[in-house]
């Protein structure tokens, strides 16, 4: 039985765990039909031309977690942002870990999707938002919707500034063999409200894990949302991250994605602007080697006038690694005075590494500023000689230059603890020793 058949035939068993009277259950069943119709994407699909799931789909994944695994904080502390005070929503093999978490209902809701789906007081918010911007025609999103059960639920009420960042951490263990995880997150940020979120997926030992996650983010008028994703997983872990962001007037949303490890990473990041004076920021640093594969597939839809979008993705590829960047910018006819910027700069450290990069511009308004630039290069020879002539060995010089190349993406990271954390991850990854002021 292939994975698709297995998923479809497991659905009934899955239903037994659920409250079938839930208002969203209808969506689960219709999404399953949609998935059944569409199947997994293959390289024949334009959007999946450079990224094949075929190998991953051969694994015999368990589809929903069977038992709980206990892990101790001291063993996993290093994966958290531990030097600042935060809220935490933590899952182990897809199951909520109350012990590692720190949730709240004090002025904001930082809790679980499972409780939001089952309790009356969340019904209005769920009805209004759940599955309203996730793409119904995307098979992986449909698959996630059909198996929706758990994830993070975050609601920041009108004019509230969440005083601590929120961490969403997913651990996985090898206890149950190959595992498919499908977290479903909903983040609603009301007018004038602000929140910062940090998301990380981490396997704790080498095993096949495939995460197919869907996150819907709603930013109302004048809201501010900063989202940081760390993808630095072990070699056998893969993730397909489907994130959908809807923004209303004057809101600012940024998503930073740091992809440093894992087998296959696909980020489908979609921004829908639904008002004027909106700012959407998408940034990424990818540093991979060996046979790792990272694919960024971005979309920003400018529907109204006077909005901006900023995309800046840097990639550093060694060995036989493969990078893909596909950035689509759509500007509606009435979206005059749009400023849309897109940059994708790449360095190939070895001849065997590849990057496929493609901007896709669909512009139907005439008064817009739209710039895009893709570069693929090697390290600057003159800069290498300059460093080496000062006694810095070749390997370190390479590290320092690639570090410097990637580093400026961090300028827009607002939480110092995240900035220094990412800085260290980059330095480790590139084998350079850095002072903290670098």
């Amino acid at each position, binding site marked *: 039985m292939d994975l698709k058949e297995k998923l479809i035939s497991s659905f009934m068993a899955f239903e037994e765990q659920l409250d079938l009277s839930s208002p969203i259950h209808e969506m689960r069943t219709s999404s399953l039909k949609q998935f059944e119709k569409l199947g997994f994407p293959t390289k024949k699909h334009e959007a999946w031309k450079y990224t094949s799931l075929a190998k991953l789909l051969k694994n015999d994944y368990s589809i929903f977690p069977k038992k709980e695994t206990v892990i101790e904080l001291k063993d996993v502390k290093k994966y958290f942002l531990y030097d600042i005070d935060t809220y935490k929503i933590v899952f182990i093999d897809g199951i909520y870990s109350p012990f590692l978490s720190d949730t709240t209902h004090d002025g904001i809701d930082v809790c679980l999707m499972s409780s939001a789906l089952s309790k009356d007081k969340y019904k209005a918010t769920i009805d209004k938002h759940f599955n309203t911007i996730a793409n119904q025609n995307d098979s992986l999103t449909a698959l996630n919707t059909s198996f929706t059960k758990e994830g993070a639920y975050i609601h920041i009420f009108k004019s509230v500034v969440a005083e601590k960042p929120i961490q969403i951490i997913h651990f996985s263990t090898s206890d149950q063999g190959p595992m498919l995880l499908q977290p479903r997150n909903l983040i609603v940020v009301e007018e004038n409200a602000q929140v910062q979120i940090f998301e990380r997926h981490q396997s704790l030992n080498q095993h096949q894990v495939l995460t197919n996650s869907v996150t819907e983010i709603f930013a109302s008028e004048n809201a501010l949302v900063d989202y940081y994703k760390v993808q630095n997983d072990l070699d056998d872990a893969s993730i397909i991250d489907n994130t959908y962001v809807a923004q209303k007037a004057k809101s600012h949303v940024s998503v930073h994605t740091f992809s440093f490890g894992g087998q296959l990473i696909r980020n489908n990041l979609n921004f829908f602007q639904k008002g004027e004076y909106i700012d959407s920021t998408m940034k990424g640093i990818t540093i991979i080697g060996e046979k790792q594969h990272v694919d960024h597939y971005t979309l920003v839809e400018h529907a109204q006038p006077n909005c901006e979008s900023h995309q800046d993705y840097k990639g550093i590829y060694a060995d036989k690694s493969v990078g893909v960047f596909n950035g689509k910018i759509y500007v509606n006819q009435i979206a005059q005075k749009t400023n849309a910027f897109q940059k994708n700069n790449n360095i190939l450290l070895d001849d065997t590494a590849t990057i496929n990069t493609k901007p896709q511009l669909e512009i139907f308004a005439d008064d817009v500023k739209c710039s895009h630039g893709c570069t693929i290069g090697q390290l600057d020879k003159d*800069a290498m*000689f300059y*460093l*080496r002539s000062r*006694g810095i*060995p070749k390997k*370190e010089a390479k590290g320092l230059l690639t570090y*410097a190349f990637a*580093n400026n993406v961090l300028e827009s990271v607002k939480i110092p603890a995240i900035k220094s954390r990412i800085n260290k991850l980059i330095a480790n990854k590139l084998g350079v020793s850095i002072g903290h002021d670098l």
Partner: protein
Amino acid sequence: MLTVKNLYASVEGKEILRGINLQVNPGEVHAIMGPNGSGKSTLSAVIAGNEDYLVEKGEITLNGEDLSEDDAEQRAHKGVFLSFQYPVEIPGVTVTNFIKTAINASRKAKGLEDMPAKDMLKNIREKAALLEIDSKFLSRSLNEGFSGGEKKRNEIFQMAMLEPKLAILDETDSGLDIDALKIVAHGVNKLKSKDNAVIVITHYQRLLDHIVPDFVHVLHNGRIVKSGTKELAHELEAKGYDWIKQLAD
């Protein structure tokens, strides 16, 4: 200290150095002058180990040791320093971190521990003061957006930090106003000792008024066509290079 014997070097198949001979002893200052394109920067790049240039023939030794097999970093560890005519801009790496990395790399090559942070800081402060460099400047990205003069001063700051045995200053005076020139010259003179040597590449007498050479060489078409003492520099200043070119041809 430095011996260059019958050195031939080319870049992209084009022969640029054609039989250079040069002997620099400890404690000496040598000036190399010559028209644009005569090969001065090429000579300094070849001595410093730039792999873009191919040594066709001849040898370079430092204190009797053949350098031909050494990478640029190994030459640096042995005490060679090149102040670049065109220092490279490196956004994202601060001056301070660059120099720390360089110093500790050299120490590591010699089997030494990293320089303690306190000593490093003290050293940086002293050398920055010597070259009248503001501390704000040290936390900027290396050479990025620096004026021509700032770049050159930063090169000499690095020299002061690294304390090389042989320093080659490639047109360090270009881009400097007269005050900056004096500061830089003062810095170089402070670092001079009987155990190290300096090669100054310049077009102008004005730097040599401050860093007084023991010997002056004129490079033309990849060869040293005339050598002399500091009076030769005055003669060149007065007469230009044409008579040298004629002499050579």
